[in-house]
């Protein structure tokens, strides 16, 4: 079968039900990768022992924006153990990579392995030293002399927009790398007519993914065959393979990108990196294996950042709290380059795409400019744009609720798109299909006992305590298919996924996918689906993923896509393999395939003693000459490609309960509740874990994490002492409620990997604003560090003259 499948019929789904006894989908199966990962037996790229590998250290720019005048490597080259020193001049055969897109007014910055004539952020790789050990490479790096002519820094995105601002990319003619605008309805007249208007300037500061495992690349080069295998801690091995093919001018069959165990990504490993290109170039140039392992300082300065936006937004409402119009202008500080393949539009454009949220807001204008600055490039980061859009919209709703005097829960219930209105096209053009908007809010309120909590808050307030309750509701598009492009016109199909399932001569089941799990437990989740659809046990299924060779068009794991797309493809392919096995089994059992049922690896006719196993069938098909007629001896194998076309809508409500200490102004999170609808649950344990991790990351965005550059463009948060990531002690107990409204996708799944990070910042911001309502403080800037709270509270106290 070659066609891409976009849906399954009811009969096909019914066939699965009749022919199997599913017991894994929906079960709390313990993650099969965990024994390996938790006992130190995982194999990350850095664990791979390649005896003769050379090691790379980069001399990176210490200027924010400067012209490179000269590079002197004489002293460095003399260090014993140094094999090669590479600069941009040495890489002339390497083609720069561009993140192409059809967006009008978009400029795709060239992406090179090493800076060529200018440096554009502190931490940009300029010189690569290749040596027998990393220690020696670093010693030599110190001896490289680079002369720079400093250029005006471009650190303030608002100033960078001005026509006379210094340009980061002269060829672009502007620092605005792309601008877009979404409009719908009579937003101006409705805003003007609205009796209640709330507005603010919102600031969401820059974050960095800070995965536990730093990035690591190892290029193994086979000189005899001119074949290159890049072992990469990437989320997108297939995408990297394609980019390398272009950059190196090598066809894909001599290029392989493998992502072995990967220790978290959060979007930071979903793009192509200069270091990745360099390692591959160097291996081929030197005819040796070449390795680079990022240290934490490099990770914090040169892995893609995320979420750096300034949003001026206004919401108009009627007296009852119904939203009449929403208008927003967004500036995205996207850093120095337009990241491959997603483009710099990805993050800021998503902000305006999702600002209307799960609400009936028909009059909308959202405009966005993605502005280049001399800072590290931004890229995808868990939640992409939506943590920011949710923060802004949910804050505006709370501000309006307070102004009008309605409860935070009521104002949301009034504005949610109702069940009978789906599918619903929001102001930015996104279409929501049915999902539990209202039910999630009600379920979350029930789980925290909202009324009792409000009573407790009243008591706390009268005792002088600052207790706050914050609600945030949102919807997200997940598991997107081919109709929806992450960045319009990019040369990349993110909308399909392929499953290749085969049963070998021993009866072993191997299922290969283009996804690349980096902590999500996909080896378990997908095995559950394959096991149920074939009628075997989870332990009978081996999942292959994280390998550009697994299927012809592998991209990877990003954008909460993997379960929806790979789960669908697995269902389709397993059905075909089961059909083939049933034909052979029917022969062996002298039965009709229609009578058969598969369960735990057995294939039998119910209520008879006619029974065989997949193992037996495999032996008969492959090994026992003459036992089966030729027409049922074909390989027990199938490849299916699934495209959910539009994708699925996931929705959720988060509630944060916290107290602000009236003396120290520190925040203590007391409780966090999430009610979410990711459709049919495959593994509730894994879903809970994803929500917990996402919420922790959202709490980081709300209270702790901020990448700080000074006015000279120097990065001040280059260690984990200064870039503050919350640890277990900072994360409150969480309670997760699941709604499970089936989706139109095969299996009824919806994507859910990013969600926790989307809701938590807004919920925490709303809770703090609620706690500080007696002081009339709004929270418009995240993270709300103790220092920011100190300034807000002191200012409020001096306003009211209530100085303690």
């Amino acid at each position: 079968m070659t066609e891409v499948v976009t849906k399954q019929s009811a009969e096909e789904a019914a066939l699965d039900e009749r022919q199997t006894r599913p017991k894994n989908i929906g079960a709390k199966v313990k993650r099969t990768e965990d024994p390996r990962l938790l006992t130190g037996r995982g194999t990350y790229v850095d664990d791979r022992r390649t005896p003769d590998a050379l090691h790379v250290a980069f001399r990176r720019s210490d200027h924010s924006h400067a012209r490179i005048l000269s590079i002197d490597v004489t002293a460095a080259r003399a260090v014993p153990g140094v094999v090669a020193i590479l600069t941009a001049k040495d890489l002339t055969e390497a083609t720069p990579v561009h993140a192409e897109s059809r967006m009008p007014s978009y400029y795709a910055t060239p992406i090179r392995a090493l800076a060529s004539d200018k440096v554009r952020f502190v931490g940009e790789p300029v010189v690569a030293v290749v040596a027998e050990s990393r220690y020696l490479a670093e010693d030599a790096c110190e001896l490289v002399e680079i002369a720079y002519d400093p250029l005006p820094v471009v650190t303030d995105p608002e100033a960078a927009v001005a026509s006379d601002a210094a340009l980061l990319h002269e060829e672009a003619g502007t620092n605005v790398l792309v601008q877009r605008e979404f409009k719908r309805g009579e937003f101006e007249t409705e805003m003007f007519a609205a009796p209640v208007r709330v507005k603010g300037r919102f600031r969401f500061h820059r974050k960095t993914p800070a995965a536990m495992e730093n990035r690591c690349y190892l290029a193994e080069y086979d000189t005899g065959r001119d074949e290159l295998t890049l072992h990469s801690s990437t989320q997108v091995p297939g995408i990297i393979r394609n980019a390398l093919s272009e950059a190196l001018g090598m066809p894909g069959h001599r290029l392989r990108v493998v992502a072995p165990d990967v220790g978290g990504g959060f979007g930071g490993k979903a793009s192509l990196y200069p270091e990745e290109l360099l390692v591959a170039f160097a291996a081929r140039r030197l005819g040796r294996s070449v390795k680079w392992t990022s240290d934490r300082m490099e990770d914090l300065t040169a892995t893609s950042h995320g979420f750096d936006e300034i949003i001026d937004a206004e919401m108009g409402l009627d007296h009852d709290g119904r939203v009449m119009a929403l208008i927003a202008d967004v500036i995205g500080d996207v850093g120095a380059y337009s990241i491959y393949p997603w483009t710099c539009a990805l993050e800021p454009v998503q902000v305006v795409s999702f600002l209307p949220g799960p609400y009936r807001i028909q009059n909308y204008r959202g405009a966005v400019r993605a502005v280049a600055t001399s800072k590290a490039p931004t890229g995808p980061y868990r939640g992409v744009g939506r943590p920011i859009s949710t923060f802004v919209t949910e804050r505006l709703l709370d501000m309006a609720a307070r102004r009008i005097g309605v409860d935070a829960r009521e104002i949301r219930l009034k504005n949610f798109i109702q069940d009978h209105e789906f599918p619903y096209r929001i102001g930015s053009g996104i279409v929501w299909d049915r999902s539990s908007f209202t039910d999630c809010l009600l379920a979350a309120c029930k789980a925290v006992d909202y009324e009792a909590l409000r009573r407790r808050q009243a008591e706390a307030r009268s005792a002088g305590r600052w207790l706050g309750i914050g609600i945030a509701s949102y919807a997200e598009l997940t598991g997107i298919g081919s109709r929806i492009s992450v960045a319009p016109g990019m040369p990349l199909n993110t909308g399909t996924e392929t499953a290749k399932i085969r049963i070998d001569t021993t009866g072993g089941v191997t299922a290969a996918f283009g996804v690349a799990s980096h902590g999500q437990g996909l080896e378990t989740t997908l095995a559950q689906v394959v096991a149920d659809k074939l009628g075997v046990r989870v332990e009978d299924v081996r999942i292959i993923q994280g390998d550009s060779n697994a299927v012809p068009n592998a991209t990877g794991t990003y954008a909460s896509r993997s379960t929806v797309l790979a789960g669908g493809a697995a269902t389709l392919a397993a059905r075909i393999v089961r059909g083939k096995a049933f034909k052979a089994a029917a022969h062996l059992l002298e039965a009709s395939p229609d009578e058969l049922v598969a369960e735990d690896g057995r294939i039998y006719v119910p209520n008879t003693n006619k029974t065989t196993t997949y193992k037996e069938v495999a032996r008969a098909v492959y090994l026992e000459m003459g036992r089966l007629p030729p027409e049922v001896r074909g390989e027990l194998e199938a490849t299916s490609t699934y495209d959910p076309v539009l994708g699925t809508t996931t929705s959720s409500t988060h509630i944060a309960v916290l107290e602000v200490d009236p003396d120290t102004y520190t925040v203590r999170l007391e409780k966090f509740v999430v009610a979410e609808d990711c459709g049919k649950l495959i593994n509730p344990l894994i879903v809970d874990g994803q929500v917990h991790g996402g919420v922790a990351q959202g709490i980081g965005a709300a209270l702790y994490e901020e990448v700080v550059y000074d006015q000279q463009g120097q990065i001040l948060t280059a260690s984990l002492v200064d870039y503050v990531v919350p640890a277990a002690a900072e994360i409150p107990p969480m309670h997760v409620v699941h709604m499970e409204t089936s989706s139109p996708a095969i299996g009824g799944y919806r994507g859910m990997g990013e969600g926790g990070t989307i809701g938590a910042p807004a919920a925490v911001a709303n809770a703090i604003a609620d706690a500080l309502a007696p002081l009339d403080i709004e929270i418009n800037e995240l993270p709300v560090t103790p220092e920011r709270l100190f300034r807000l509270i002191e200012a409020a106290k001096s306003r009211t003259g209530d100085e303690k």
Partner: protein
Amino acid sequence: MKPPAFDYIAADNLEGALSALSAAGGDGKVLAGGQSLMPMLNFRLARPSVLIDINRVPGLAYVEATGSTVKVGALTRHHALEMSPVIKTHLPVVAAAMQHVAHLAIRNRGTIGGSLSHADPAAELPMLTLLLDARIGIHSPRGRRITDAGDFFVTSLVTSLEEDEIVTDIEFPKPARESGWAFEEVARRAGDFALAAVGVTIDARDRKCEQARIGLMGVGETPVRAHEAEALLRGQRLSDTLLDEAVASIRSAIEPNTDLHASSDYRRHLAGVLAKKAIRDAWRRADGDRQ
């Protein structure tokens, strides 16, 4: 993030460590728990030509109560101090403060001597030695000397140690049994260096303060004692006015730094509210509330 090359000597005894250190002529560094030194080496902020590892030197890790003092060996690990029954009995303020030092993995390795010698102005142990008027025992090829904690901390990350000296022991005078104490700290996360912290001990008779000690950290280049506020409390009974006066005195006596995590003003604010709470709690304990 790899250190430049260095030589490594594992000393078997104190004499060996001292002679190796003095042979290095100012270019050697003592390696104790390595929790501060290793990051400095990896960042290439410290570039010693030789490391003298003292972890195998016998007789440097102990906690002992003598008649009037508690003696602690320089190689005692943070966690050993935290769990020591001697410390819990005689220096409860130390036991309480130790829980704020970093994380368990770091406390298992980090040493008392290392923490004092490193002299981070936001670290707990330097402040505790100052608060409790501890005396620091130091060895060099020239012999032994003892210095008051007050004379040891010169400025941020700088002590009065000479290049060839090794801290060997710390002696804390035992406070009176009924002495009240409290320790209050604010850090961004559990285990982080403090934005500000306050330690207090109070001796009271008939609810009147006979002696008060107030130590602060994270609010200047070294840990500090609030001598003026201590004097304000002496001979007084606890009252809100007295507390406010003490807080005002503390706030005007300190000159905190501004960094990424907190401004000078916020640190000053914290010093005040933490001192207020700590003085109140210590006083309550001194008055016989043993909770």
